[in-house]
């Protein structure tokens, strides 16, 4: 099948060059296959009706699409939608570039994905032919640099050819496309992928009219080729300046959004008509569906619009065939969800719509009888409708139910519209393609499409990106014979049985495509990507640490627990009162029962006051199989904190520490010194994370190191997040020793209080910029700490700066503010000095107009008072109303 397509393409291109049919011998020469084979393929193509056989001597073959080669004096550009409006300037430029004496201008075409750059280049070529600037037989050769993006040397060799021995693997001399295009046009798509070396070789050709194949130091190949190039990128940042200077003509194609509704109307009309022509039947579309197509957000421009329309037509066609309808009607049910969303924009465009659709009834009809002059539709698409029909017949023969048939065919249809379906947005694919090979990206698209179908779940860019990185790496590892191990494979299988089945299915695809054998453990990883919340499969029943408060007194414990539960808003903490007359033995057995009742597998924290209760925990640890930790001298804040953390799902150790901290704060005065020394030497780190800790996270680590490590003091650590708990524990460990600037991950990182950056952002550069900013910011605060250290006599500058920053962050949340970095610096300093002064017992400037201010900002003032509680406790100071008002104003004025 693949071979057939190749042959067909060659027929089309040769026919275009020669302006007549093609013989078997010519195909045999062009593709370097023997004549008998060429003839066999050609006959098969002709049997299938893809090409026509013209009897004679020799027998010629030609594609029907090209019989309508435009006549000489027809202005081919006038056929495209918008040639008089949005494309007027580009068309004028294009004509000028083609006609410019003596041999035209090399042209760069700019425009977003799907704006029609390739089509435009092809039209320019046709225009050159019809204007007699180029021979009818002049070649038009297209080349997409991204096909060779992972091998720059091969890419350059493709264009310029190579002399034997130029590099490893170049075992014979080969002609390049530039040579093959002699006398015609070479269209280089995605030229931003052409490495600088290639760009230099190309502009040497611009300047001198000759080039040298790779590895050839003397020969001068003279050719006359017009170069049309295209890119989606900003050429001034993605191409060499010296190259850009030599491009005499730059044409920019506008994105769909800038082309106005009227043109979009015409485009939709054109595309539906094309489909109608292919099916050979009229196509009807319901007005609302039509409006959806007019208005929906279409980031991949015309290419996507066309694709979405074809998809809708195919679905409508299926309905027409399988349900024996009288006509093909596209309704809301046949259009993808993201297209349907267009209807919601109706109110914004009401007037224009009314004008446009004035003459239109509830259903629109499209038919087309003339073949279009625009570039030919590839045959595999052309015969797509036949395939649907064929399958339908087959399935009916197998006695499948209508519903089943529909499901199967719907799948097939969607599989056929790979490129733009679903949620993969334009940049994601572009960007990731720079790191991951295209075949992997395509595979991931396929995988997610299947998963979306099977599991009825949407996958966002993050999953797309993460899975791409992961898969790339996994395939490498499998090929290198490295072992892949998934420690929780069985658990994953049980928890996500549906996803696992899908993963098995896609693994087969991967096997075939990449000629590897995916081990079961790897399928476990794939399953995790497909699961919606890989870490929280059991969120509902996520186990929590039990909290048990046991105190002396008739009701002390129960009242303390009541307060805590009420404040946290749950009923999690439990209480046991121990009246003074109660015997410890009796209490112990009650407590033991209670602990067993509370135990959910994550241990129990016992909060007690004194005496025999202190040793209960140790006794139980030996007595029952349960981890118990004990906190003594309990206070209400401790119970509240413990309950809060337990409900959040934190582990026993964490909660225990938090309570200990509170205990320390209450008793301590100025003994922070020891702890501080180790804090000051904290190092900045960035954590990268992926499921294995060896795949995407290592790639990310590499990228970050390349971008950041030379400029900042920084360490990057790659972690695995197979298990949520382990991961968080690991983070905590790191956090003690280092300052975590951010966590960069391929999947959602299950931690609330650290800045997160997605892998996608990193690849797009946004993430790097954000991280840089954050690092600079950290450096600045470090310097602030150093500058302050000698001047703040009463408090520790590091601690104070940290406290202030936490407080500001808290206020941002509570007051729903976004405070700019500059202002934060000011406020931080303000708070540090405020604390120092208060500790010294100095007076603070009164706040003028406090009465009125208090009235106006009642709630804000209260939030601030609440937010300052911790700081007041830690520094043993009282922050008065005037000071709070100063702070409040600083926050609010921003």
């Amino acid at each position, binding site marked *: 099948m693949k071979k057939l397509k190749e042959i067909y393409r060659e027929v089309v291109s040769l026919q275009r060059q020669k302006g007549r049919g093609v013989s078997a011998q010519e195909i045999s020469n062009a593709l370097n296959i023997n004549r008998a084979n060429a003839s066999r393929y050609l006959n098969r193509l002709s049997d299938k009706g893809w090409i026509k056989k013209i009897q004679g001597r020799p027998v010629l073959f030609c594609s029907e699409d090209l019989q309508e080669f435009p006549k000489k004096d027809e202005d081919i550009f006038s056929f495209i939608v918008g040639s008089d409006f949005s494309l007027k300037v580009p068309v004028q430029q294009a004509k000028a570039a083609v006609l410019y004496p003596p041999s035209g201008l090399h042209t760069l075409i700019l425009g977003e994905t799907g704006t029609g750059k390739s089509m435009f280049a092809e039209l320019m070529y046709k225009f050159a032919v019809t204007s007699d600037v180029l021979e009818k037989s002049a070649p038009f050769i297209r080349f997409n640099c991204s096909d060779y993006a992972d091998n720059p040397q091969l890419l350059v060799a493709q264009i310029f050819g190579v002399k034997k021995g130029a590099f490893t693997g170049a075992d014979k001399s080969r002609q390049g496309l530039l040579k093959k295009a002699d006398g015609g046009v070479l269209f280089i798509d995605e030229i931003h992928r052409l490495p600088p070396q290639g760009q230099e070789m190309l502009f040497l050709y611009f300047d001198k009219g000759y080039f040298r194949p790779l590895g050839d130091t003397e020969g001068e190949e003279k050719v006359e080729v017009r170069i049309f190039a295209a890119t989606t990128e900003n050429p001034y940042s993605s191409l060499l300046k010296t190259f850009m200077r030599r491009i005499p003509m730059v044409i920019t194609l506008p994105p769909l959004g800038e082309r106005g509704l009227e043109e979009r109307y015409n485009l939709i009309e054109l595309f539906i008509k094309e489909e109608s022509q292919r099916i050979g039947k009229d196509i009807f579309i319901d007005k609302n569906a039509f409006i959806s197509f007019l208005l929906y957000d279409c980031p991949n421009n015309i290419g996507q619009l066309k694709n979405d329309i074809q998809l809708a037509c195919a679905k409508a066609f299926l309905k027409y065939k399988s349900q024996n309808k009288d006509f093909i009607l596209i309704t809301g049910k046949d259009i993808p969800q993201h297209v349907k969303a267009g209807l919601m924009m109706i109110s914004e465009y009401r007037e224009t719509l009314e004008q446009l659709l004035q003459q239109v009834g509830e259903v629109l009809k499209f038919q087309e009888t003339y073949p279009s002059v625009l570039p030919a539709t590839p045959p595999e698409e052309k015969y797509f409708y036949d395939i649907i029909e064929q399958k339908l017949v087959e399935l009916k023969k197998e006695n499948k139910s209508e519903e089943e048939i529909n499901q199967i065919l719907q799948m097939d249809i969607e599989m056929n519209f790979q490129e733009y379906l679903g949620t993969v947005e334009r940049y994601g694919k572009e960007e990731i393609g720079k790191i991951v090979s295209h075949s992997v990206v395509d595979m991931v698209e396929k995988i997610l499409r299947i998963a979306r179908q099977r599991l009825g779940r949407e996958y966002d860019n993050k999953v797309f990106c993460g899975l791409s990185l992961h898969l790339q790496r996994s395939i490498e590892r499998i090929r290198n014979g490295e072992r892949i191990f998934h420690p929780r494979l069985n658990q994953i299988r049980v928890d996500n049985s549906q996803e696992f089945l899908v993963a098995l299915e896609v693994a087969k695809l991967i096997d075939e495509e990449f000629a590897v054998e995916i081990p079961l453990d790897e399928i476990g990883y794939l399953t995790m990507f497909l699961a919606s919340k890989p870490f929280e499969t059991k969120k509902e029943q996520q186990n929590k640490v039990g909290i048990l408060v046991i105190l002396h007194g008739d009701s002390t414990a129960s009242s303390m627990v009541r307060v805590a539960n009420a404040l946290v808003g749950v009923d999690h903490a439990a209480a046991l009162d121990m009246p003074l007359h109660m015997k410890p033995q009796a209490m112990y057995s009650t407590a033991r029962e209670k602990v067993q009742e509370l135990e959910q597998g994550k241990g129990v924290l016992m909060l007690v006051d004194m005496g025999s209760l202190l040793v209960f925990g140790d006794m139980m640890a030996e007595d029952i199989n349960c981890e118990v930790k004990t906190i003594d001298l309990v206070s209400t804040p401790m119970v509240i904190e413990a309950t809060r953390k337990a409900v959040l799902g934190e582990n026993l150790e964490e909660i225990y520490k938090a309570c200990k901290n509170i205990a320390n704060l209450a008793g301590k005065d100025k003994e922070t010194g020891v702890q501080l020394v180790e804090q000051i030497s904290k190092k900045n780190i960035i954590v990268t994370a992926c499921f294995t800790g060896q795949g995407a996270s290592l790639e990310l680590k590499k990228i970050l190191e390349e971008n950041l490590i030379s400029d900042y003091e920084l360490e990057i650590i790659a972690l695995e997040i197979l298990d949520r708990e382990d991961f968080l524990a690991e983070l905590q460990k790191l956090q003690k020793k280092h300052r975590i600037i951010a966590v960069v991950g391929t999947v959602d990182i299950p931690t609330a209080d650290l800045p997160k950056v997605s892998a996608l952002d990193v690849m797009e550069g946004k993430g790097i910029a954000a991280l840089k900013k954050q690092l600079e910011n950290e450096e600045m605060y470090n310097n602030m700490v150093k500058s302050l250290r000698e001047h703040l006599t009463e408090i520790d500058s590091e601690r104070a700066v940290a406290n202030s920053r936490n407080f500001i962050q808290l206020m941002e949340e509570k007051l729903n503010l976004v405070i700019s970095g500059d202002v934060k610096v000011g406020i931080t300093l*303000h708070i540090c000095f405020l604390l120092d002064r208060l500790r010294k017992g100095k007076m603070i400037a009164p706040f003028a107009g406090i009465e009125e201010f208090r009235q106006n900002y009642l709630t804000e003032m209260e939030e601030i008072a609440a937010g300052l509680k911790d700081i007041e406790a830690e520094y043993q100071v009282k922050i008065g109303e005037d000071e709070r008002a100063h702070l409040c104003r600083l926050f609010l004025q921003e």
Partner: protein
Amino acid sequence: MAKKVMLVCSAGMSTSLLVKKMQTAAIERGLEIDVFSASQAEAKEYFDEISILLLGPQVRYLEGELKKVLDSMGIPMLIIDSRDYGTINGEKVLDEVLAELKKGEPPGFHEEKEDKP
């Protein structure tokens, strides 16, 4: 006459250290510059005396309010760069001040210390 530089923040607290550092720097460089700080509320009282007013970044919202008055009096105003502010970089802020004050002077004008007999 010594030039007076006033730093303004909300309560005149957080600028105090910066004032000290700037003043030290000025003395070390042998400049006759007097640096002091004021709270937002007090600031207006000194407008008659000062050559330039500096705002802490956290009170930059005052700029709009003060600009009119200051412009009419021909007093320049600067918002202190938050990095310099955060790191309490007196030298750097002083440089900024000198550069700004120079702008207001006619070209070729050098305020050289007159040799007093």
